[in-house]
């Protein structure tokens, strides 16, 4: 029977191919929607895994999470540096680490932080070691630089009018293991370096960012990074220059704390030893602090406390993401409805085509019967033929959907630095089963028509 069915399909290979393609596209649409939504969920859940609680200045909780977890460039308001000191000394806090943004190296965000954060949020170094001096830097696994490279940060992405910090250069001392998060694309430097580069924590020191442009170019050439490197992939038009502007604003407000320090203004000194302890009044303003509470109860209490102060905001990234997922879920439901609609249309069109085809094959079917083929076999032939087309289409569609999602995820990973894991879940089996059942049922309709057809039709025209 299968032989006859295959011969028949081969005869109508063009039509069969079109049918398979239609089914495959309809199935691929549904598959892609499901897989892509799941990939976004898994990917973002993984990215926020280590981020229990984030404290920042009052503003958008979502933006705080997007900027600190996903390193999305944005103008974040600053909170007083004393928040960091208070958190570090809080008995409910296992550890707390500052996160400072604003600079870029070759399109990679430069994040000012502490060795604690590196130690607690990564699995270790692929090569090299952590930064031990102000002018040292650690790169994420996806940063396209090498150990020993000299990095000149620009304030803001250069393609968007950012400018180089003249006379400032970091040296790469280590590369981290991959974490599968956006932080794989980050260049991590001591937070004190970020402060000093931006002239924070002391009296005005704003000459540094008005250096001649020529110097800027030179520095880059020395670095071995060509201009295209900076220009690529920054077309998104994010805006992050304000972060620095606010830095300055806060800087002046903070200045009176730092009076004792004002004579030997702590300008950027690559060889200055690492200092990761701050006394009250010492730390300048900060956009975000990552906090690891000792217990879940502590986490809730901390969030409560730091929400109440008025000049800070505390968020659980997981909670913010749940809110985003809910929106994502709504969008997915709409897309799934569209996909199901497309599938139904395809199914209806196919039903029409196959019923017509059975009509056109009355003679062939009648002849089979006339020569003694049992009705059951006639049913089987028509059913099998359609089921094969459906089956091939469905499998092809699943593959196509998977490939499309993989492609999208790759493009996303290249753009955003963290992969979206594409995977089928056990729950998909149900949908798959329903799809197969539906296809089997649909195939039975023309098969039943063929079954019921009287054999004498073969002798007529």
């Amino acid at each position: 029977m299968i032989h006859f069915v295959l011969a028949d399909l081969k005869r109508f290979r063009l039509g069969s191919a079109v049918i398979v393609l239609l089914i495959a596209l309809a199935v691929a649409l549904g598959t892609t929607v499901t897989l892509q939504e799941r990939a976004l969920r898994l990917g973002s859940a993984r990215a926020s895994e280590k981020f229990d609680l984030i404290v920042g200045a009052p503003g958008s909780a979502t933006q705080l999470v997007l900027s600190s977890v996903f390193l999305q460039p944005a103008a974040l308001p600053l909170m007083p540096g004393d928040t960091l000191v208070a958190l570090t000394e809080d008995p409910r806090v296992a550890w707390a680490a500052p996160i400072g943004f604003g600079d870029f190296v070759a399109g990679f965000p430069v994040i000012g932080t502490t060795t604690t954060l590196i130690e607690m949020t990564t699995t270790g170094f692929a090569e090299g070691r952590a930064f031990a001096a102000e002018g040292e830097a650690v790169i994420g696994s996806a940063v396209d630089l090498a150990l020993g490279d000299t990095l000149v940060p620009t304030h803001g992405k250069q393609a968007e009018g950012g400018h180089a910090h003249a006379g400032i250069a970091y040296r790469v001392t280590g590369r981290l293991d991959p974490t599968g998060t956006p932080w794989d694309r980050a260049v991590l430097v001591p937070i004190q370096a970020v402060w000093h580069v931006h002239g924070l924590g002391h009296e005005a020191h704003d000459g540094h960012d008005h250096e001649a442009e020529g110097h800027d170019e030179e520095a880059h050439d020395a670095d071995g990074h060509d201009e295209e490197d900076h220009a690529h992939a920054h077309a998104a038009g994010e805006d992050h220059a304000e972060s620095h502007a606010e830095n300055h604003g806060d800087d002046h407000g903070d200045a009176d704390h730092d009076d004792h320090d004002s004579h030997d203004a702590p300008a950027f000194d690559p060889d200055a030893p690492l200092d990761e302890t701050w006394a009250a009044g010492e730390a300048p303003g900060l956009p975000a602090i990552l906090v690891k509470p000792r217990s879940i109860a502590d986490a809730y209490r901390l969030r409560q406390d730091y929400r109440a102060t008025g000049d800070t905001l505390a968020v659980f990234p997981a909670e913010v993401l749940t809110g985003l997922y809910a929106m994502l879920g709504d969008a997915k439901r709409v897309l799934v409805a569209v996909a199901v609609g497309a599938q139904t249309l395809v199914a209806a069109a196919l039903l029409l085509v196959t019923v017509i085809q059975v009509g056109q094959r009355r003679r062939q079917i009648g002849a089979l019967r006339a020569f003694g083929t049992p009705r059951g076999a006639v049913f089987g032939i028509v059913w099998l033929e359609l089921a094969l087309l459906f089956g091939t289409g469905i499998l092809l569609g699943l593959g196509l959907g998977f490939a499309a999602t993989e492609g999208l995820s790759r493009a996303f990973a290249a753009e955003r630095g963290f992969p979206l894991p594409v995977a089928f879940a056990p729950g998909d089996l149900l949908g798959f089963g329903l799809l197969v059942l539906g296809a089997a049922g649909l195939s039975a309709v023309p098969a039943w028509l063929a079954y019921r057809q009287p054999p004498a039709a073969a002798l007529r025209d």
Partner: protein
Amino acid sequence: MLGLHLSSVEVAYPGLAAPVLRIPDLDIPAGARVAVTGPSGSGKSTLVNIVTGLAPPGSGCVLWDGTDIARLPEGARDRWRGANIGLVMQDFHLFPGLSALENVLLPARLSRVADTAMKDRARTLLAEVGLDRPGQPVETMSRGEMQRVAVARALLRAPGVIVADEPTASLDPENGAAIGALLIDLAHRSGATLIVVSHDSRLTARLDRVLSLSGGEILSDSGCEGARQ
């Protein structure tokens, strides 16, 4: 090898004044070779449908060696036809994409009765009808060759009855004569009862008995007595 007895068979269609076939009584003994002739629309194909069980008569009995196939349920009638009737039609009803051999074997395979012996028999039959390339795809064959394949297919399960409806009408005279001769020869060798519907007087002349239909009734029956040997 099967004998037929029709009694008070009538086939009528709603809206038609007269029945398209009315045969009060007809006997065709086992092993007989009968031609059926008559003008177009006289009910020849209808008769073929009735005696092969492709369609049940509105009323009457169709007894083949005591089995009234008019009373069999459809599935049983299909099985009975597959085992006992070898059909050859004006249109060959071969299935493109399959070879001559596969076409010969197809109905038996779909009925799940094809075994090695039957495959050997299929090859032998193809050789007997004069085809020496059993693997040739049927769509590449000439019309004469196609009808030979159809004849081999009809004979595969050694049916007790061979029924042919205008087997030579779509062939040129030479091929028609050859096919006619083949049918008569093979039926003779297997002892099968042969019923051939044909306008071709050269073919009908070679058979023992000629039934002439007109308006659904048997107008004349040339060998009514002579056929009973």
